[in-house]
């Protein structure tokens, strides 16, 4: 992972290492940290493709406001990966369309 090993001021306390998959590939990240950060540390920059022009989008605002980093997580589309914590065993996929809302929700 592309992690800062030494820092003059900060001392990073990462959580437990957990396994997850991205488009089927098994990766390792830290539990509770944003999915976007885990992917970035694994060198992944493209999180979704725009529905019409298929342009790549990735990380951008990191505060859950810009929609750039939407991903499909465990089948749920449009997940704001910059503010969604990574959990063990998550199945994360590139989002390739607008996503569909599950209508059986309450």
């Amino acid at each position, binding site marked *: *992972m*592309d*992690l*800062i090993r*030494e*820092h*003059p*001021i*900060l001392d*990073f306390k*990462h959580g437990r290492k957990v396994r997850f998959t991205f488009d089927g590939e098994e990766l390792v990240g*830290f539990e*509770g*940290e*944003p999915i976007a*950060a885990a992917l*970035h*540390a694994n060198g992944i*920059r*493209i*999180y979704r493709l725009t529905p019409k022009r298929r*342009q*790549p*989008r*990735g*990380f*951008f*605002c*990191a*505060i*859950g*406001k*810009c929609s*750039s980093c939407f991903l499909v997580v465990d089948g*749920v589309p*449009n*997940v*704001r990966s*910059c*503010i*969604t*914590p990574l959990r063990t065993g998550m199945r994360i996929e590139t989002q390739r369309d607008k996503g569909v809302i599950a209508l059986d*929700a*309450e």
Partner: protein
Amino acid sequence: MIRVRQTEVLVIGGGPAGLSAALEAASLGCQVILVDGDLALGGQLIKQTHKFFGSKDERAGTRGFKISEILLKELKNHRDRVKVHINCTATGIYKEDGVVSCVIGEEEYFRIKPERIVMATGAQERLIPFPNNHLPGVYGAGAVQTLMNVYGVIPGKRVLMVGAGNIGLIVSYQLIQAGVEIAGIVEAMDKVGGYWVHAAKVRRLGVPIFLRHTIKEALGDRVVTGALIQEIDDRFQPVGREKKIDADIICMAVGLTPTCELLWQAGCEMIYVPQLCGHVALRDQFMRTSLPHVWVAGDAAGIEEATAAMVEGRIAGLDAARSLGKGDKEDLTERLEDLQKRLGDLRGGEVGQKICQGLACCSIQGWGA
């Protein structure tokens, strides 16, 4: 039916302003709900590794993330009265019944019916238009800070910074601390916008600052591989030859704008104030908006900095509690006057002039009965 939670004070946003508002309201005995969209409280403070300026009262000389720790400790003293929801976004506010809808994560919706609301929603990054500005690798400066200073992730190998204001300069320095190379800093104006001390730090480390330059285009097919930059004249028209810069990250530090959607939705009277960097709510000297049950504080009330945000938050929290009949009248009047004086002192310098001009456009001396 999704249940409705009642509370005396709802604080939206757990950054410096919101934390300050929540702990002051709670200190006067209010039941408080504090919601924040992020995974931790503290807002942008938690990634500020530099020492703050300002006055001693507001902890000048302390690093930003330490200030956040101090506020959180103070909040803990009131934990029986403050219910905190993190990873919780306030998604809407309904004028008809005063209900605020929230979602934890992406799926778990609930509603809050507060008697008073403090909007401390902060700010969001501005972006400037240029071809390929959508490419992965074009990141907001705040986002880059989050990656490296909160989560310890190396954002990239070589960064082009756009904007030489305080944020652009500070984040450049922090990138170097994290071991990342800075290809250069591009600034459209003919001088550095940030404090001299920050500019001197990066200059000493040999980072080129391209004044009177703009970014013409991000390069790259699927992700950023570089950028074209070009000199501009007095009317911001490109002149001279384009320069190609190799970089895998283009970091945008071209300013912030207040996050004001909920204020609009609530029906607060809003005004565009360039000095405060966007639309802001009209407010009285206690940060109360045109809606008698809604206060605003921090960057949501106009882009300034974290120290002023904390003081504004305290004012808003105290005044919201006062409006609910909490606290001792005389004591509160004194405390609020003291806070207003501190705010005035913070804005006393040259940098504060622009803020004061902006505030003159949106401040009301009391909303009357």
